[in-house]
Every structure is written in C-alpha cells, then in structure tokens.
C-alpha cells in the first residue's frame, strides 16, 4: 500500500526538484497540499505538467493567495489525444523517488480513490545506478518543456545538473520497465508484445483504474505470448 502523499513528504530525500506529470492537476489541491508535501521533502523547484483541457477548467480554483507561477511552474500540455501520464518524481543530489501510477494530482487520485502505483527509489549510498525510469521521466519533461516558457527549461537544466547520477549507466536494479507512450511513440500493447514475443507466460496481471468498454485490451493481454497463461485483471 502506497500513500502517495506520505511518500512525497520525505525529508530524508533532501530533494531539490519535483516533477509532477498528470492528466488532471487540481490546482487548488496542488497549491494547498501537494506543493507543501513536496516542499517538505526539500523540493523548492517544482514543475507541473498537465493536460490543457482540465487545466483551463480548473483555473477558477486559483485564488490571489495561490503560489502558482511563483513557487511552482505549471505547463499545460496540448496534444491530439489526452496527456495522460501520472508520475511524481523527487530529485535530490544523492537520493530520489519516482512514483508512477494511475492517480491524478487530485483529491480523488491521491486521497480517496483506489489507484495503482509503483515506487522507484534511488540512493547513491547503495552504489547501484538509478533505474532508467528516472531519466525517462526527466527526458519526457524536457521534451514537454520545449513548448513551455523558458523558465521551465531552466528549472529542468538545473535539476539535471544537480542530479548527475540520473545519467549513470549500469546494471538494472530490477526488471521493471516504465514505458512512455504517446504521440509518435509505440503503443503499450505493442511494447508488451515485443517483450514477450512468442514466449511462454505463466500469468499476466493487469491493474488499472479503468479498461475499455469492449475489453479489447484484456483480450489482447490474454493472447500475449502463446496465449496459454492465466490473465488476472484488477480494476
């Protein structure tokens, strides 16, 4: 069980930067709660990327006391489909944490709903390289920043300079993979298909907050590999 809000408020990380990617960032909730949790981990430079449509609708929640644009940058992302990742990353000089999952930065996504999340930690003292998921998320943020105001690019450049460990290459700490899909990228299902190819699988477990109505994705999961595995779906 991961309480994302607790995981984001960890002073041991001595973070300098946080990067939040979500479809919906409830600006009021972020400003009054998430921002403070991130700051208690040390993240004085905070970046938020969210889908442009819910962002526009949520602007009513910004009051004169909001720290938006001062304590953190918000970059609305416009794309043909929805901008739909949910990632929460804290970068420090020697430690870091990344939480990837299904919950938006909202009351529902981080407090009330049952959501699925996975956690990646980095601690330089352990002598292992960082999981590539960290650099994948940073690179995604850098790509998104090319369409943002220059200050966002500066925030990311500083973050990368202060966390040089993020580019260290070495043996993978574990077998987990964070795949960044979206415009121009391969779809998640084809990545899975390539990873498995014709091999034998014992079990496929899919955990998601939602599935397509016709369950096409579940059917495809059931047909992965040579299709004789059991498929478990947790919604």
């Amino acid at each position, binding site marked *: *069980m991961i309480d994302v809000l607790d995981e984001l408020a960890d002073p041991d990380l001595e973070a300098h930067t946080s990067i939040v990617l979500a479809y919906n960032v409830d600006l*009021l909730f972020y400003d009054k709660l998430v921002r403070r949790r991130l700051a208690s981990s040390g993240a004085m430079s905070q970046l938020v990327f969210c889908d442009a449509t819910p962002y526009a609708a949520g602007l009513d929640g910004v009051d004169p006391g909001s720290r938006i644009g001062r304590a953190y940058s918000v970059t609305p992302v416009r794309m043909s489909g929805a901008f739909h990742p949910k990632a929460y990353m804290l970068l420090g000089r020697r430690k870091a944490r990344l939480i990837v999952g299904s919950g938006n930065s909202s009351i*529902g996504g981080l407090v009330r709903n049952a959501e699925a999340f996975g956690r990646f930690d980095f601690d330089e003292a352990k002598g292992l390289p960082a999981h590539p998921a960290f650099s994948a998320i940073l690179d995604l943020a850098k790509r998104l920043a090319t369409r943002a105001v220059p200050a966002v690019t500066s925030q990311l450049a500083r973050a990368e300079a202060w966390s040089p460990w993020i580019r260290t290459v070495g043996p993978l700490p574990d077998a987990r993979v964070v795949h960044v899909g979206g415009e121009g990228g391969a779809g998640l299902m084809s990545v899975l298909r390539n990873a498995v190819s014709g091999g034998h699988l014992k079990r496929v477990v899919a955990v998601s907050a939602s599935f397509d109505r016709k369950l096409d994705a579940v059917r495809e999961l059931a047909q992965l590999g040579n299709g004789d595995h059991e498929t478990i779906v947790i919604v």
Partner: protein
Amino acid sequence: MPEGDVDWLARDRDFTEGIDHLGVQVVSTNIYARLLPGISNLTDRARYFSFYPWVLDSFARKSPGKSPDDWRIWIRRHEFTFSAASIAAEVADKIDEDAAGGVIGARAARRIVNKKGAATVDIHDATRIENGKAAKGTYFKNREGGYGQYYKNQMTVLGLMRHDEDRKAPDRQLTKYAGEKLSVVVEQAKAFRDLREIAAIGGAVSLADLVTLGQAVHPGVLDPDGGEADHLRKIVLGTDDDLCRGQTAEERGRRRRTLALALDYLAKDDDEWDGDAVLGFRWGVLEESLGDGTRWKVPAHLEATRLGWAAYAQNELLNYALECLMWSVVQMIDAMPMTPREYAATLAAAACSARHATAPLPGRVDAALSAFAPPTSSSPWGDGSTWALLDELQDTTEPLQCAASAVRVLLRVAADRSRYGGRHPFAAIPDGDDIARRDIHLQAWWDRTDAARLESTEAFFAQLVIDWIIYRHLRVATRKLASQGDYTYRFRPEEGVLVSCGEIKPTFTNPRLRQGMRMLADIGLIEHGFGSVTKHGRALMAVTT
C-alpha cells in the same frame, strides 16, 4: 489489520463529519468570545465554579493519598456523587424542570439511577480507574471527569485556580483571593460534607439518600441569598475587585455589559418568543426591538454592546445564507454532475428569476440592493422584514428555491447598514479590526457588493457561488486535510465535474448566551427558565454603567 489488507477501505470509512464547511463561522465565534469572555459553551452551571475548588481543597486536606491516581479517584468520585445525587433528585421530580439539566455525566448517572430494581448506586464501580485510565463503562472517559474536560481551564481564566508548576495531578492550585474563599463557603454546607463522606468511601449509596442529597447540591438549587451565590455573582459579573484579581478589568467589564444587556432585554420583553429568550435576544439586538414589535430602548451605556451583538447577529445571517447556498450546491451535485461554473450559473439563474420567488431580482446589483433595503414599516417582523426573509429561507426544501431565498437574505444583509452610522460593523467589538482580517465577514460582503454595483445580478451571484461557496469549501476542506488529516469534503472535483461526498446542514453558531442566561439564573439574577429579573438582577442593572 493483517499485512496486505487494503487499508484504503478503512480510510474510506474515516470520514469526518466536521463543521463550518465554508470556514465562515470563526468570525462569529471570535465576536462572541470577545463580547462574553469567561463563559464557554460547555460551562453552563455556576455551581461547578464553587464545587470544584471545594473538591480540590478537600483533596489537599482530607485525602489520605496524594498520588496522581489518588487525585483522579477523588475528583471522579466527588463529581459522580454530585451527578448521581442531582439526577436522582431530578428523576424523583424534586427539582424544578426549569432548573434541571447541565449536570456533568448526566447520561451515565441517569442510566444507573434508572436501572430497573436498583436501590443503590455503586460510586466506585461508576468511577473506577484501571491502569491509570478511566475504566470502560464508567461515567466519564476523561480521567479527571468533566472538571478536566470542561471546567478546569475556564476556572483558570476566571482566576479561581492557577497552574501548579510542581504537580501533574492535580495540576491546579486554588488562588487565595477567589478559589479558597469559594471553597470555604461550600465547606460550610452540611450537604457537601455529606457528599464528601459518600465519595471518600466510594461504596454503594442508597437512591433515597442520593435524592435527599441532590435536593441540596443540585446546580439549580443555589440559594440566591446565600453566601455561595453571592460569591459566584461577584465572580461571574466581575463586580468585586478582590475576588476578581485574576481577571482583567477589560474582560470583566465586557462580560458584565453583555449580561446586563441580556438582563435589560429580559426585564422588558414579554413572552412573544415562546420562552426562547435567547432567540428573542438575538433578534432584539439586531432590530432594536422587543418581541411584540415595540422598540427596545437600550440604556445608553449598553448601546455599544448592543451594536457589537447586532454585528454578530447580522454576520450570522450572512453565514447562514452562504451555508444554504452550499446546501443547494450539494443537493444539485447529488442529482446531476456538472462543472463548478454550470452549478453556479444554474443556481444564479434560478435565484434571480421569478420561478422560485414572488418577483425576479432586478438585473443590476445596485437595483437589487435598493429593492432589498430594509422596509420602513414599524413592525420588524412583518412582510419583507429580515425575519420574514429568513423564515422563508428556513422553510425551503428544494435546492433552487433555497438558493433563491438565500440570495434574498444576502441582499438584505448587504443593504441593511444604517445602524452602524457609517462605521465598520465590528467597530463596537473589542479587537474587531483583527477579526475583520478574515476573508468572509459582514464588511467583506458589503465591500463585495459595493464593488459590483454596476454588474449583472445574475453574473454577480454566479461568481459568488464560485468564489465563496464551491472553491471556498474546497480550500477549507483541503486545509483541514493538510493540517489535521481530516477528510471533510462535501464535494470534490473529479475529471472536471463535482462529485458529492456528503451532506451539509446549515447552522448558526452558539453564542454562549444560553449558557450565560442559565448562569444568570443559577446565581439568582433571573428566574430559572429565562424568567423574570430578580432583585439581584435589578441591583446589577443599576450598578452597570
């Protein structure tokens, strides 16, 4: 919980009911705390102010053991014996109905006293301490009973006791100038010495003995001409410099003026409020009127206090109407998910139309304010009066109708300013400027309407719902979640629309007046049941200047 269980289910059940979902009531509570200092909502019987000093003093003089647990057992047994005796007397109909109530641990005492076939009450069993904690099923969870829960701090504020730096239990010692004097007076009463004998033994006591004891010690049977009532009067009213050395002159004066104002109202009002003098007082200070509609001629030296209470009452109307608007939003969310702007627009359109009211609202804010200026008719309770507008609002059962009535009350609150003579409505309240630093209060509402005089009424109220209802609630609930971990959301945004999380019941704050008035009765200034003013009450009114 076993490892691996999904404790988010437990968290879903962890839903705090909460109060003040718009964070507006704090202004009202600040006002009444300043106008009636030293009386809290939970300390409503004056006799406890003399009883507890006596128990504390008795412990020092008579208890064989002096350990923290000895103290806890001592206070619990005394307090429960007092409760059981008082309740036994109430149950036996030996206490006037108007003088009953307000007894600490009454529910447990009543349960024990009313037990079928019970002829005795076991004091030890009802009060026992196990492993340093109140045992399960005993009369009070707090180890120091109602004394520790409600009265200890208030008695410290009133200067009856002070912190004892050297001890943890009891952590208070009596002041020589007030606490010890009260204890001496109580010790003179045989009934209290009998009570101590029962409590010290802590055994079974017969119901018949408790009834007899209760008739003498019940908080509602203080002899108004006796020494105990006289001392309490001086302390509560702050009229004796020596006894009140622990209270600031400023606070004594404020409390005395509010109580004197209440006495003045009670002395002049009739029975128009069906015995609810507190309700009458709230409206009386606002409209400067008695229950029968005649003018309440407030003595000049109490006029500033009346204006302070008028600001309180008017601020309460603002809060209540805003909470009614929130209630409307919550009901609509239950019926259909929409965006905040859609709710705001729907409510504002309905509120401004004639569909849910006798007439539509004028299209511009300044015209709407003129339309809701207070009527010039002589009756403060007639058609078009603030009273009538609120009555209408309280009668509504449907969200759009409720919103329509609420905005009409809001317009009246915005237009009704003349009583303050152009000054800030909180000018008559000590530290009123401090209170006015909050976001939402009477003056802020006036400023908001003034700034929007040329705007469309419908757009103005739609924006009000957005700012002061929907996002205000989300801000307040998020703050509570961030600071206390309490989940008090009544609605929350989800994928752009609002989803419902709970109910809201619009309420007024409790301005301690009911407690204040009950205390006036306890110390013999008015008859119990908010009745007529006694000779002691009239004497106070004569000296309060």
